[in-house]
Protein backbone atom coordinates (compact mmCIF):
# COMPACT_ATOMS: atom_id res chain seq x y z
CA UNK A 1 0.00 0.00 0.00
CA UNK A 2 2.78 2.36 0.97
CA UNK A 3 4.49 1.55 -2.33
CA UNK A 4 1.23 2.28 -4.18
CA UNK A 5 1.02 5.79 -2.69
CA UNK A 6 4.68 6.40 -3.44
CA UNK A 7 4.03 5.48 -7.09
CA UNK A 8 1.01 7.82 -7.24
CA UNK A 9 3.03 10.63 -5.69
CA UNK A 10 5.90 10.11 -8.13
CA UNK A 11 3.42 10.08 -11.04
CA UNK A 12 1.99 13.43 -9.93
CA UNK A 13 5.48 14.88 -9.59
CA UNK A 14 6.39 13.67 -13.09
CA UNK A 15 3.19 15.15 -14.49
CA UNK A 16 3.90 18.58 -13.01
CA UNK A 17 7.61 18.47 -13.80
CA UNK A 18 7.03 17.62 -17.48
CA UNK A 19 4.52 20.46 -17.77
CA UNK A 20 4.80 21.14 -21.50
CA UNK A 21 4.76 17.49 -22.50
CA UNK A 22 1.84 16.80 -20.18
CA UNK A 23 -0.05 19.70 -21.74
CA UNK A 24 0.57 18.39 -25.28
CA UNK A 25 -0.52 14.87 -24.38
CA UNK A 26 -3.62 16.01 -22.57
CA UNK A 27 -4.62 18.34 -25.40
CA UNK A 28 -4.41 15.69 -28.07
CA UNK A 29 -6.30 13.31 -25.81
CA UNK A 30 -9.04 15.93 -25.35
CA UNK A 31 -9.36 16.28 -29.13
CA UNK A 32 -9.62 12.53 -29.55
CA UNK A 33 -12.24 12.09 -26.88
CA UNK A 34 -14.18 15.07 -28.12
CA UNK A 35 -14.27 13.80 -31.69
CA UNK A 36 -15.17 10.36 -30.59
CA UNK A 37 -18.02 11.35 -28.31
CA UNK A 38 -19.39 13.99 -30.66
CA UNK A 39 -19.74 11.41 -33.40
CA UNK A 40 -21.11 8.93 -30.93
CA UNK A 41 -23.75 11.30 -29.61
CA UNK A 42 -24.70 12.51 -33.09
CA UNK A 43 -25.06 8.97 -34.28
CA UNK A 44 -27.23 7.91 -31.36
CA UNK A 45 -29.29 11.10 -31.45
CA UNK A 46 -29.89 10.92 -35.18
CA UNK A 47 -30.77 7.25 -35.03
CA UNK A 48 -33.26 7.95 -32.27
CA UNK A 49 -34.51 10.91 -34.30
CA UNK A 50 -35.12 8.67 -37.25
CA UNK A 51 -36.91 6.14 -35.09
CA UNK A 52 -39.08 8.87 -33.65
CA UNK A 53 -39.90 10.19 -37.07
CA UNK A 54 -40.51 6.72 -38.46
CA UNK A 55 -43.26 6.17 -35.93
CA UNK A 56 -44.68 9.55 -36.69
CA UNK A 57 -44.81 8.97 -40.40
CA UNK A 58 -48.37 8.56 -41.44
CA UNK A 59 -48.52 9.13 -45.11
CA UNK A 60 -51.98 10.51 -45.25
CA UNK A 61 -53.82 10.29 -48.52
CA UNK A 62 -56.80 12.64 -48.27
CA UNK A 63 -59.70 11.34 -50.28
CA UNK A 64 -62.22 13.15 -52.42
CA UNK A 65 -65.71 13.15 -50.99
CA UNK A 66 -66.88 11.52 -54.22
CA UNK A 67 -64.85 8.38 -53.57
CA UNK A 68 -66.97 5.30 -53.19
CA UNK A 69 -66.56 2.98 -50.25
CA UNK A 70 -65.80 0.05 -52.55
CA UNK A 71 -63.07 2.04 -54.35
CA UNK A 72 -61.54 3.09 -51.07
CA UNK A 73 -61.56 -0.49 -49.80
CA UNK A 74 -59.83 -1.68 -52.97
CA UNK A 75 -57.13 0.97 -52.60
CA UNK A 76 -56.71 0.12 -48.94
CA UNK A 77 -56.31 -3.58 -49.73
CA UNK A 78 -53.86 -2.83 -52.48
CA UNK A 79 -51.70 -0.78 -50.15
CA UNK A 80 -51.94 -3.33 -47.37
CA UNK A 81 -50.73 -6.05 -49.73
CA UNK A 82 -47.43 -4.21 -50.34
CA UNK A 83 -44.57 -5.72 -48.34
CA UNK A 84 -43.20 -2.27 -47.44
CA UNK A 85 -46.43 -1.26 -45.75
CA UNK A 86 -46.81 -1.72 -42.02
CA UNK A 87 -50.43 -0.71 -41.72
CA UNK A 88 -53.20 1.09 -43.55
CA UNK A 89 -55.94 2.76 -41.63
CA UNK A 90 -59.09 4.31 -42.99
CA UNK A 91 -60.12 7.51 -41.25
CA UNK A 92 -63.66 8.46 -42.10
CA UNK A 93 -64.92 12.03 -42.40
CA UNK A 94 -66.63 11.71 -39.02
CA UNK A 95 -63.49 10.42 -37.36
CA UNK A 96 -61.50 13.25 -38.87
CA UNK A 97 -63.97 15.69 -37.43
CA UNK A 98 -63.77 14.05 -34.02
CA UNK A 99 -59.97 14.28 -34.10
CA UNK A 100 -60.15 17.89 -35.18
CA UNK A 101 -62.44 18.66 -32.29
CA UNK A 102 -60.15 16.96 -29.81
CA UNK A 103 -57.09 18.68 -31.23
CA UNK A 104 -58.68 22.08 -31.04
CA UNK A 105 -60.65 21.53 -27.86
CA UNK A 106 -59.63 24.84 -26.35
CA UNK A 107 -60.30 26.98 -29.38
CA UNK A 108 -63.93 27.83 -29.28
CA UNK A 109 -64.08 30.01 -32.37
CA UNK A 110 -62.73 27.23 -34.57
CA UNK A 111 -65.23 24.75 -33.26
CA UNK A 112 -68.07 27.22 -33.55
CA UNK A 113 -67.19 27.86 -37.18
CA UNK A 114 -67.91 24.21 -37.93
CA UNK A 115 -71.37 24.31 -36.49
CA UNK A 116 -74.24 24.42 -38.92
CA UNK A 117 -72.21 23.49 -41.97
CA UNK A 118 -71.45 20.14 -43.60
CA UNK A 119 -68.35 18.39 -42.34
CA UNK A 120 -65.58 19.96 -44.50
CA UNK A 121 -62.89 17.48 -43.47
CA UNK A 122 -61.96 14.78 -45.93
CA UNK A 123 -61.72 11.07 -45.19
CA UNK A 124 -58.20 9.69 -45.48
CA UNK A 125 -56.03 6.60 -45.62
CA UNK A 126 -53.18 6.65 -43.12
CA UNK A 127 -50.31 4.50 -44.30
CA UNK A 128 -47.36 3.48 -42.10
CA UNK A 129 -44.28 1.97 -43.70
CA UNK A 130 -41.46 -0.11 -42.25
CA UNK A 131 -38.70 1.77 -43.99
CA UNK A 132 -39.07 5.47 -44.74
CA UNK A 133 -36.68 5.06 -47.65
CA UNK A 134 -39.38 3.09 -49.42
CA UNK A 135 -41.96 5.79 -48.90
CA UNK A 136 -41.85 7.02 -52.44
CA UNK A 137 -42.43 3.55 -53.82
CA UNK A 138 -45.51 3.19 -51.65
CA UNK A 139 -46.98 6.56 -52.42
CA UNK A 140 -46.53 6.03 -56.14
CA UNK A 141 -49.62 3.82 -55.83
CA UNK A 142 -51.66 6.99 -55.40
CA UNK A 143 -50.59 8.18 -58.83
CA UNK A 144 -51.83 5.05 -60.58
CA UNK A 145 -55.02 5.04 -62.58
CA UNK A 146 -57.99 4.24 -60.45
CA UNK A 147 -56.39 5.79 -57.39
CA UNK A 148 -55.55 9.17 -58.86
CA UNK A 149 -59.26 10.10 -59.05
CA UNK A 150 -59.85 9.19 -55.43
CA UNK A 151 -56.96 11.03 -53.85
CA UNK A 152 -57.14 14.73 -53.29
CA UNK A 153 -53.74 15.21 -51.64
CA UNK A 154 -50.84 13.14 -50.28
CA UNK A 155 -49.18 14.67 -47.27
CA UNK A 156 -45.88 12.88 -46.98
CA UNK A 157 -43.88 15.42 -48.90
CA UNK A 158 -43.70 17.87 -46.01
CA UNK A 159 -41.97 15.29 -43.84
CA UNK A 160 -39.86 14.03 -46.66
CA UNK A 161 -37.38 16.91 -46.46
CA UNK A 162 -36.70 16.18 -42.80
CA UNK A 163 -36.50 12.48 -43.42
CA UNK A 164 -34.04 12.92 -46.25
CA UNK A 165 -31.87 15.25 -44.18
CA UNK A 166 -31.82 12.85 -41.28
CA UNK A 167 -30.97 9.97 -43.54
CA UNK A 168 -28.10 11.59 -45.30
CA UNK A 169 -26.78 12.99 -42.00
CA UNK A 170 -26.86 9.59 -40.33
CA UNK A 171 -25.15 7.92 -43.23
CA UNK A 172 -22.50 10.64 -43.26
CA UNK A 173 -21.96 10.49 -39.51
CA UNK A 174 -21.67 6.73 -39.57
CA UNK A 175 -19.21 6.66 -42.40
CA UNK A 176 -17.08 9.63 -41.30
CA UNK A 177 -17.50 8.94 -37.58
CA UNK A 178 -15.97 5.50 -37.54
CA UNK A 179 -13.09 6.59 -39.76
CA UNK A 180 -12.40 9.80 -37.87
CA UNK A 181 -12.57 8.08 -34.52
CA UNK A 182 -10.11 5.43 -35.60
CA UNK A 183 -7.74 7.97 -37.11
CA UNK A 184 -7.89 10.28 -34.10
CA UNK A 185 -7.53 7.37 -31.69
CA UNK A 186 -4.43 6.22 -33.51
CA UNK A 187 -3.00 9.74 -33.69
CA UNK A 188 -3.62 10.17 -29.96
CA UNK A 189 -1.94 6.88 -29.20
CA UNK A 190 1.09 7.84 -31.30
CA UNK A 191 1.37 11.33 -29.81
CA UNK A 192 0.85 10.28 -26.21
CA UNK A 193 3.26 7.39 -26.80
CA UNK A 194 5.87 9.78 -28.15
CA UNK A 195 5.30 12.30 -25.37
CA UNK A 196 5.79 9.68 -22.71
CA UNK A 197 8.75 8.33 -24.66
CA UNK A 198 10.38 11.76 -24.61
CA UNK A 199 9.64 12.04 -20.88
CA UNK A 200 11.15 8.61 -20.35
CA UNK A 201 14.11 9.37 -22.57
CA UNK A 202 14.88 12.50 -20.55
CA UNK A 203 14.84 10.30 -17.47
CA UNK A 204 16.68 7.31 -18.84
CA UNK A 205 19.69 7.89 -16.59
CA UNK A 206 17.35 8.14 -13.63
CA UNK A 207 15.72 4.87 -14.62
CA UNK A 208 19.15 3.22 -14.71
CA UNK A 209 19.95 4.57 -11.25
CA UNK A 210 16.58 3.43 -9.94
CA UNK A 211 17.31 -0.07 -11.16
CA UNK A 212 20.77 -0.02 -9.62
CA UNK A 213 19.47 0.90 -6.17
CA UNK A 214 17.03 -1.99 -6.29
CA UNK A 215 13.77 -0.60 -7.67
CA UNK A 216 11.56 -3.25 -9.24
CA UNK A 217 10.28 -2.76 -12.79
CA UNK A 218 6.79 -2.08 -11.45
CA UNK A 219 8.09 0.57 -9.09
CA UNK A 220 9.70 2.33 -12.06
CA UNK A 221 6.81 1.70 -14.44
CA UNK A 222 4.14 2.73 -11.94
CA UNK A 223 4.60 6.52 -11.99
CA UNK A 224 4.67 6.59 -15.82
CA UNK A 225 1.52 4.51 -16.01
CA UNK A 226 -0.15 6.75 -13.48
CA UNK A 227 0.92 9.74 -15.58
CA UNK A 228 -0.85 8.13 -18.56
CA UNK A 229 -3.96 7.60 -16.43
CA UNK A 230 -3.78 11.22 -15.35
CA UNK A 231 -3.74 12.37 -19.00
CA UNK A 232 -6.86 10.29 -19.56
CA UNK A 233 -8.72 11.59 -16.49
CA UNK A 234 -7.93 15.26 -17.08
CA UNK A 235 -8.69 14.95 -20.79
CA UNK A 236 -12.05 13.35 -19.99
CA UNK A 237 -13.04 16.17 -17.65
CA UNK A 238 -12.05 18.86 -20.16
CA UNK A 239 -13.70 17.00 -23.01
CA UNK A 240 -16.96 16.58 -21.07
CA UNK A 241 -17.09 20.29 -20.35
CA UNK A 242 -16.29 21.18 -23.95
CA UNK A 243 -18.84 18.69 -25.21
CA UNK A 244 -21.57 20.13 -23.01
CA UNK A 245 -20.78 23.63 -24.22
CA UNK A 246 -20.62 22.52 -27.84
CA UNK A 247 -23.95 20.74 -27.75
CA UNK A 248 -25.59 23.42 -25.67
CA UNK A 249 -24.79 26.08 -28.26
CA UNK A 250 -25.19 23.98 -31.38
CA UNK A 251 -28.20 22.02 -30.13
CA UNK A 252 -30.91 24.59 -31.01
CA UNK A 253 -29.40 25.15 -34.45
CA UNK A 254 -29.42 21.43 -35.10
CA UNK A 255 -32.98 21.09 -33.89
CA UNK A 256 -33.96 23.82 -36.29
CA UNK A 257 -32.17 22.21 -39.17
CA UNK A 258 -34.05 18.99 -38.63
CA UNK A 259 -37.34 20.74 -38.10
CA UNK A 260 -37.53 19.92 -34.41
CA UNK A 261 -38.05 16.23 -34.90
CA UNK A 262 -36.56 14.19 -32.13
CA UNK A 263 -32.92 15.24 -32.61
CA UNK A 264 -32.17 16.52 -29.15
CA UNK A 265 -28.46 16.09 -28.53
CA UNK A 266 -28.30 18.31 -25.44
CA UNK A 267 -31.01 16.26 -23.84
CA UNK A 268 -29.30 13.08 -24.88
CA UNK A 269 -26.04 14.23 -23.31
CA UNK A 270 -27.80 15.18 -20.10
CA UNK A 271 -29.55 11.87 -19.70
CA UNK A 272 -26.42 9.88 -20.53
CA UNK A 273 -23.69 11.84 -18.73
CA UNK A 274 -22.42 8.90 -16.63
CA UNK A 275 -22.32 6.56 -19.62
CA UNK A 276 -20.50 9.04 -21.88
CA UNK A 277 -18.16 10.04 -19.05
CA UNK A 278 -17.25 6.42 -18.38
CA UNK A 279 -16.80 5.72 -22.08
CA UNK A 280 -14.41 8.65 -22.45
CA UNK A 281 -12.62 7.78 -19.24
CA UNK A 282 -12.17 4.19 -20.34
CA UNK A 283 -10.80 5.12 -23.74
CA UNK A 284 -8.60 7.92 -22.31
CA UNK A 285 -7.10 5.68 -19.66
CA UNK A 286 -6.64 2.86 -22.15
CA UNK A 287 -4.71 5.13 -24.54
CA UNK A 288 -2.67 6.57 -21.62
CA UNK A 289 -1.71 3.22 -20.14
CA UNK A 290 -0.94 1.48 -23.42
CA UNK A 291 1.23 4.42 -24.55
CA UNK A 292 3.20 4.29 -21.28
CA UNK A 293 3.70 0.56 -21.42
CA UNK A 294 4.77 0.68 -25.07
CA UNK A 295 7.19 3.54 -24.43
CA UNK A 296 8.75 1.92 -21.35
CA UNK A 297 9.36 -1.47 -22.90
CA UNK A 298 12.79 -0.60 -24.23
CA UNK A 299 14.17 0.92 -21.05
CA UNK A 300 13.06 -1.85 -18.75
CA UNK A 301 14.68 -4.55 -20.84
CA UNK A 302 18.01 -3.72 -19.19
CA UNK A 303 18.91 -6.01 -16.34
Amino acid at each position, binding site marked *: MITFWRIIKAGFTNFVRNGVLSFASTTIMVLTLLTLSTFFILNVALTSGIEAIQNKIDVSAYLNDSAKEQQILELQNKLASLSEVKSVKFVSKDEALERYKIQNAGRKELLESLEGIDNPLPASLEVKVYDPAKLEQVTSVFDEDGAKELVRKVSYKENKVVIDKLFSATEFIKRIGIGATLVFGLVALIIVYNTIRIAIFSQKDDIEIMK*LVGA*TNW*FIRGPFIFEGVLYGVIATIISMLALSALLFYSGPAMNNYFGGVGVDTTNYLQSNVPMIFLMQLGIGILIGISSSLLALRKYLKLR
Partner: protein
Amino acid sequence: MIHLEGVTKKYANKKVALDNINLDIGAREFVVLVGQSGAGKSTIVKLLNMEEVPTKGTIKVGGINYLDFPKRNIPYLRRKIGIVYQDFKLLPKKNVFENIAYALEVAGVPTSQIKERVPKILQLVGLSKNSKCMPDEISGGERQRVAIARALVHQPKILIADEPTGNLDPKNSWGIIDLLLKINSFGTTVLLSTHDKEIVNNLKKRVLTISKGKIIKDQKIGKYDL
Protein backbone atom coordinates in the same frame (compact mmCIF):
# COMPACT_ATOMS: atom_id res chain seq x y z
CA MET B 1 31.47 -13.67 1.18
CA ILE B 2 32.35 -13.26 -2.52
CA HIS B 3 33.30 -16.33 -4.53
CA LEU B 4 34.13 -16.39 -8.24
CA GLU B 5 35.08 -19.67 -9.90
CA GLY B 6 36.27 -19.98 -13.48
CA VAL B 7 34.43 -16.80 -14.45
CA THR B 8 34.79 -15.73 -18.07
CA LYS B 9 32.97 -12.84 -19.67
CA LYS B 10 32.92 -12.25 -23.40
CA TYR B 11 30.97 -9.29 -24.74
CA ALA B 12 28.96 -9.32 -27.96
CA ASN B 13 31.90 -7.82 -29.87
CA LYS B 14 33.84 -10.99 -28.89
CA LYS B 15 36.13 -8.97 -26.64
CA VAL B 16 37.18 -11.08 -23.65
CA ALA B 17 36.71 -8.86 -20.58
CA LEU B 18 37.39 -11.53 -17.98
CA ASP B 19 39.29 -14.74 -18.57
CA ASN B 20 38.84 -17.61 -16.11
CA ILE B 21 38.82 -15.59 -12.89
CA ASN B 22 39.02 -17.38 -9.54
CA LEU B 23 38.54 -15.23 -6.46
CA ASP B 24 37.57 -15.54 -2.81
CA ILE B 25 36.89 -12.62 -0.50
CA GLY B 26 36.00 -13.36 3.11
CA ALA B 27 33.63 -11.55 5.46
CA ARG B 28 34.87 -8.23 6.92
CA GLU B 29 37.78 -8.10 4.46
CA PHE B 30 38.95 -4.88 2.77
CA VAL B 31 40.16 -5.76 -0.71
CA VAL B 32 41.59 -3.44 -3.33
CA LEU B 33 41.11 -4.38 -6.97
CA VAL B 34 43.81 -2.74 -9.03
CA GLY B 35 44.08 -2.51 -12.77
CA GLN B 36 44.33 -0.10 -15.64
CA SER B 37 41.30 1.10 -17.55
CA GLY B 38 39.82 -1.75 -19.55
CA ALA B 39 41.52 -4.41 -17.44
CA GLY B 40 38.17 -5.85 -16.34
CA LYS B 41 37.57 -4.18 -12.94
CA SER B 42 34.21 -2.70 -13.91
CA THR B 43 33.11 -5.99 -15.47
CA ILE B 44 33.64 -7.71 -12.10
CA VAL B 45 31.49 -5.03 -10.43
CA LYS B 46 28.78 -5.45 -13.09
CA LEU B 47 28.77 -9.21 -12.63
CA LEU B 48 28.47 -8.86 -8.85
CA ASN B 49 25.57 -6.43 -9.30
CA MET B 50 23.95 -8.72 -11.91
CA GLU B 51 24.05 -6.01 -14.57
CA GLU B 52 25.86 -8.61 -16.65
CA VAL B 53 25.85 -12.39 -16.70
CA PRO B 54 29.08 -14.40 -16.99
CA THR B 55 29.67 -16.32 -20.20
CA LYS B 56 31.12 -19.16 -18.11
CA GLY B 57 31.76 -19.88 -14.44
CA THR B 58 30.09 -19.60 -11.04
CA ILE B 59 29.47 -16.55 -8.88
CA LYS B 60 28.32 -16.79 -5.28
CA VAL B 61 27.78 -13.74 -3.09
CA GLY B 62 26.65 -14.02 0.54
CA GLY B 63 25.60 -17.62 -0.09
CA ILE B 64 23.51 -16.77 -3.17
CA ASN B 65 24.42 -18.65 -6.34
CA TYR B 66 23.89 -16.26 -9.25
CA LEU B 67 23.54 -19.08 -11.75
CA ASP B 68 20.06 -20.05 -10.66
CA PHE B 69 18.97 -16.68 -9.35
CA PRO B 70 15.74 -15.56 -11.10
CA LYS B 71 15.96 -12.35 -13.09
CA ARG B 72 12.82 -10.90 -11.52
CA ASN B 73 14.49 -11.04 -8.08
CA ILE B 74 17.51 -8.96 -9.10
CA PRO B 75 16.12 -5.78 -7.41
CA TYR B 76 15.99 -7.60 -4.07
CA LEU B 77 19.61 -8.73 -4.46
CA ARG B 78 20.69 -5.16 -5.22
CA ARG B 79 19.24 -4.02 -1.92
CA LYS B 80 21.67 -6.41 -0.17
CA ILE B 81 24.82 -5.17 -1.92
CA GLY B 82 25.87 -1.55 -1.65
CA ILE B 83 27.53 -0.18 -4.77
CA VAL B 84 29.28 3.15 -5.24
CA TYR B 85 30.18 4.42 -8.70
CA GLN B 86 32.78 6.83 -10.06
CA ASP B 87 30.04 9.10 -11.45
CA PHE B 88 28.02 8.96 -8.18
CA LYS B 89 24.77 8.10 -9.99
CA LEU B 90 22.62 10.39 -7.88
CA LEU B 91 19.11 11.34 -8.99
CA PRO B 92 19.59 14.96 -10.09
CA LYS B 93 16.05 16.11 -9.25
CA LYS B 94 16.11 14.77 -5.72
CA ASN B 95 17.95 16.41 -2.83
CA VAL B 96 20.51 14.65 -0.65
CA PHE B 97 17.93 13.35 1.81
CA GLU B 98 15.57 12.20 -0.97
CA ASN B 99 18.35 10.41 -2.85
CA ILE B 100 19.11 8.28 0.16
CA ALA B 101 15.45 7.89 1.07
CA TYR B 102 14.71 6.63 -2.45
CA ALA B 103 16.74 3.47 -1.87
CA LEU B 104 14.51 2.77 1.14
CA GLU B 105 11.30 3.79 -0.63
CA VAL B 106 11.81 1.25 -3.40
CA ALA B 107 12.10 -1.41 -0.72
CA GLY B 108 8.77 -0.37 0.80
CA VAL B 109 10.29 0.91 4.06
CA PRO B 110 7.71 2.98 6.00
CA THR B 111 8.17 6.76 5.98
CA SER B 112 8.60 6.89 9.75
CA GLN B 113 11.58 4.55 9.52
CA ILE B 114 13.03 6.50 6.60
CA LYS B 115 12.91 9.67 8.67
CA GLU B 116 14.79 7.87 11.38
CA ARG B 117 17.41 6.05 9.31
CA VAL B 118 18.43 8.69 6.76
CA PRO B 119 19.63 11.32 9.25
CA LYS B 120 21.71 8.66 11.04
CA ILE B 121 23.45 7.62 7.84
CA LEU B 122 23.96 11.28 6.87
CA GLN B 123 25.66 11.81 10.19
CA LEU B 124 27.92 8.82 9.53
CA VAL B 125 29.12 10.29 6.23
CA GLY B 126 29.34 13.80 7.70
CA LEU B 127 26.60 15.46 5.64
CA SER B 128 23.92 16.23 8.24
CA LYS B 129 23.96 19.89 7.28
CA ASN B 130 23.54 19.22 3.57
CA SER B 131 20.41 17.08 3.64
CA LYS B 132 18.30 19.67 1.78
CA CYS B 133 20.96 20.42 -0.89
CA MET B 134 20.50 19.31 -4.48
CA PRO B 135 23.34 17.18 -5.93
CA ASP B 136 24.59 20.07 -8.11
CA GLU B 137 24.89 22.32 -5.05
CA ILE B 138 27.53 20.19 -3.33
CA SER B 139 31.14 19.24 -4.16
CA GLY B 140 32.22 16.01 -5.86
CA GLY B 141 33.51 14.61 -2.58
CA GLU B 142 30.22 15.37 -0.89
CA ARG B 143 28.29 13.76 -3.74
CA GLN B 144 30.33 10.61 -3.35
CA ARG B 145 29.52 10.63 0.38
CA VAL B 146 25.84 10.81 -0.50
CA ALA B 147 26.30 7.84 -2.85
CA ILE B 148 28.07 5.92 -0.07
CA ALA B 149 25.31 6.82 2.38
CA ARG B 150 22.74 5.53 -0.11
CA ALA B 151 24.68 2.33 -0.61
CA LEU B 152 24.86 1.80 3.16
CA VAL B 153 21.32 2.69 4.09
CA HIS B 154 20.15 -0.92 3.64
CA GLN B 155 22.96 -2.01 5.99
CA PRO B 156 24.48 -4.32 3.38
CA LYS B 157 27.11 -6.90 4.30
CA ILE B 158 29.11 -5.97 1.19
CA LEU B 159 30.06 -2.57 -0.16
CA ILE B 160 31.55 -2.40 -3.65
CA ALA B 161 33.18 0.87 -4.67
CA ASP B 162 33.95 1.16 -8.40
CA GLU B 163 36.62 3.87 -8.84
CA PRO B 164 34.93 6.03 -6.17
CA THR B 165 37.76 8.56 -6.20
CA GLY B 166 38.13 8.72 -9.98
CA ASN B 167 36.52 12.16 -10.23
CA LEU B 168 37.91 13.60 -6.99
CA ASP B 169 40.99 15.60 -5.97
CA PRO B 170 43.51 13.93 -3.56
CA LYS B 171 42.09 15.56 -0.42
CA ASN B 172 38.54 14.50 -1.16
CA SER B 173 39.77 11.10 -2.31
CA TRP B 174 41.32 10.41 1.08
CA GLY B 175 38.15 11.56 2.78
CA ILE B 176 36.24 8.88 0.85
CA ILE B 177 38.87 6.18 1.54
CA ASP B 178 38.78 7.00 5.27
CA LEU B 179 35.02 6.64 5.17
CA LEU B 180 35.33 3.22 3.48
CA LEU B 181 37.84 2.12 6.14
CA LYS B 182 35.45 3.27 8.85
CA ILE B 183 32.60 1.30 7.26
CA ASN B 184 34.87 -1.75 7.03
CA SER B 185 35.70 -1.41 10.72
CA PHE B 186 31.98 -1.78 11.48
CA GLY B 187 32.09 -5.22 9.84
CA THR B 188 31.13 -4.55 6.22
CA THR B 189 33.15 -6.33 3.54
CA VAL B 190 34.60 -3.69 1.20
CA LEU B 191 35.77 -4.25 -2.36
CA LEU B 192 37.46 -1.13 -3.67
CA SER B 193 38.31 -0.94 -7.35
CA THR B 194 40.83 1.77 -8.24
CA HIS B 195 43.84 2.66 -10.32
CA ASP B 196 45.07 5.37 -7.93
CA LYS B 197 48.66 4.39 -7.11
CA GLU B 198 49.00 6.57 -4.02
CA ILE B 199 45.86 5.22 -2.41
CA VAL B 200 46.80 1.59 -3.09
CA ASN B 201 50.31 2.01 -1.70
CA ASN B 202 49.19 3.77 1.46
CA LEU B 203 46.28 1.53 2.33
CA LYS B 204 48.34 -1.55 3.13
CA LYS B 205 45.44 -3.88 2.47
CA ARG B 206 44.97 -7.01 0.34
CA VAL B 207 45.50 -6.10 -3.31
CA LEU B 208 44.25 -8.03 -6.32
CA THR B 209 45.94 -6.92 -9.53
CA ILE B 210 44.02 -7.50 -12.71
CA SER B 211 45.38 -7.16 -16.23
CA LYS B 212 43.81 -8.07 -19.56
CA GLY B 213 40.97 -9.88 -17.83
CA LYS B 214 43.17 -12.06 -15.61
CA ILE B 215 44.12 -11.76 -11.94
CA ILE B 216 47.89 -11.62 -12.11
CA LYS B 217 48.63 -10.97 -8.44
CA ASP B 218 46.92 -11.49 -5.08
CA GLN B 219 48.99 -9.95 -2.24
CA LYS B 220 47.97 -9.87 1.44
CA ILE B 221 49.45 -6.41 1.94
CA GLY B 222 49.91 -5.25 -1.57
CA LYS B 223 51.34 -2.40 -3.56
CA TYR B 224 50.46 -0.81 -6.85
CA ASP B 225 52.54 -2.73 -9.31
CA LEU B 226 51.61 -2.33 -12.96
